[in-house]
């Protein structure tokens, strides 16, 4: 099982990478999803553009106002132990702990996970709950896209063939309650289904709930009915159960070899209750 032949370009700068990209090329970052697809010849690009040597794409910066700017090339292992991420976006760190196995986390990148857009991936879901945006570079400059608009469908994003995802930005989430829950066959497997929750508010009152399901739709999806059950209310464990009762309304889970759609809907309800309950516990303790 070997990839079809391709040309290889090691870009030293973002401009070099952009110059090398065309309609028949793929960006090589961590390669933990791309290379299996090459090996199985599900993809046969004419050229790989390796961005691993491009400097400045892997840092984490905390904004004075509380938000985060995360370089797309940061490895999962480094994200997991980053103190700024742990303080500002513990939801993202918790989600990262569920990504693959150690050897995969050592190579895989945050930007790669988003650009690959596997519907069952943890990180796009956690970032959607955090109201993240992505910054994308092209030959004519950079553009900033809300993650909700960037994620189009299964393995499909708004990234053009000649663009590079360079940065992920999240607004201030300090003090927000959060929860993350998933069910997978084994640790490190893609989730059968999972839920990320982020609750912002004042005291016990929830002003802005984000409840996102993954593995339960063609892309990570906000469970808006569940969010409405939380917005404007005083948080409690009972309220988590009310939100969970609404959870399955906004997703169309796939029916496949791993699980039936009905089982996934059940999981989305149960995991919503768990994730929201954990978030409530953090806010009301």
């Amino acid at each position, binding site marked *: 099982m070997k990839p079809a032949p391709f*040309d290889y370009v090691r870009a030293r700068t973002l401009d070099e990478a952009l110059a090398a990209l065309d309609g028949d090329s793929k960006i090589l970052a961590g390669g933990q999803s791309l290379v299996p697809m090459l090996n199985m010849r599900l993809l046969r690009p004419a050229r790989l553009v390796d961005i691993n040597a491009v400097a400045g794409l892997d840092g984490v910066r905390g904004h004075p106002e509380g938000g985060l700017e995360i370089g797309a090339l940061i490895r999962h292992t480094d994200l997991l132990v980053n103190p700024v991420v742990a303080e500002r976006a513990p939801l993202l760190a918790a989600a990262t702990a569920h990504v693959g196995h150690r050897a995969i986390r050592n190579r895989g990148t945050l930007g790669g996970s988003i650009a690959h857009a596997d519907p069952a991936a943890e990180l796009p879901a956690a970032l959607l709950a955090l109201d993240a945006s992505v910054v994308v570079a092209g030959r004519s400059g950079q553009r900033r896209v809300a993650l909700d608009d960037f994620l189009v469908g299964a393995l499909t994003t708004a990234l053009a063939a000649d663009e590079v995802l360079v940065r992920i930005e999240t607004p201030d989430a300090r003090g927000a309650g959060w929860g993350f829950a998933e069910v997978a066959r084994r640790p490190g497997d893609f989730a059968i289904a999972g839920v990320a929750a982020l609750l912002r508010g004042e005291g016990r009152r929830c002003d802005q709930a984000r409840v996102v399901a993954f593995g339960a739709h063609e892309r990570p999806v906000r469970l808006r009915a569940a969010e409405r059950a939380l917005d404007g209310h005083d948080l409690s464990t009972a309220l988590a159960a009310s939100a969970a009762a609404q959870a399955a309304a906004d997703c169309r889970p796939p029916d496949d070899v791993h699980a039936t759609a009905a089982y996934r809907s059940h999981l989305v309800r149960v995991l919503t209750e768990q994730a929201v309950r954990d978030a409530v516990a953090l806010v009301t303790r």
Partner: protein
Amino acid sequence: MSDCSIRLRVNGRAVERTVPARRSLADLLREDLGLTGTHVGCEHGVCGACTVLVDGRTARSCLLLAVQLEGAEVTTVEGLTPPAGLSALQEAFRECHALQCGFCTPGMLAAAHELLAENATPTRDEIRAAIAGNLCMCTGYVNIVRAIELAAHRLPR
């Protein structure tokens, strides 16, 4: 199609080769360098048999292109083995019967090596999590977990 020149270090020795861009690190090690201790199982990152250390961290050598390793330090199971005899971890695997067919063993050793380098007193759950990405079809894992526990116990304090 496109050949690339690369320079890297493998088990402490400088290596310079020209390889096709599509050559995996696993194939570079086995086919070009004759280091057949690295085993190739699934070739898509699931089985963990080809796990090696790249700059001290585990990586699937089937999911890395050799050309990506320019300037890197790669350590295989041959590099984890002392010139004479066995490493403490390997000795513990032998004593605990932590291998039967041996196919998964090089990858298991790499994963266990990384674990013990970071955590000298892992719990049984931490050991199981550390080797969760390495499939073994023979042992049922119990003896592998025991071997890693034993090796941790024998680490110099």
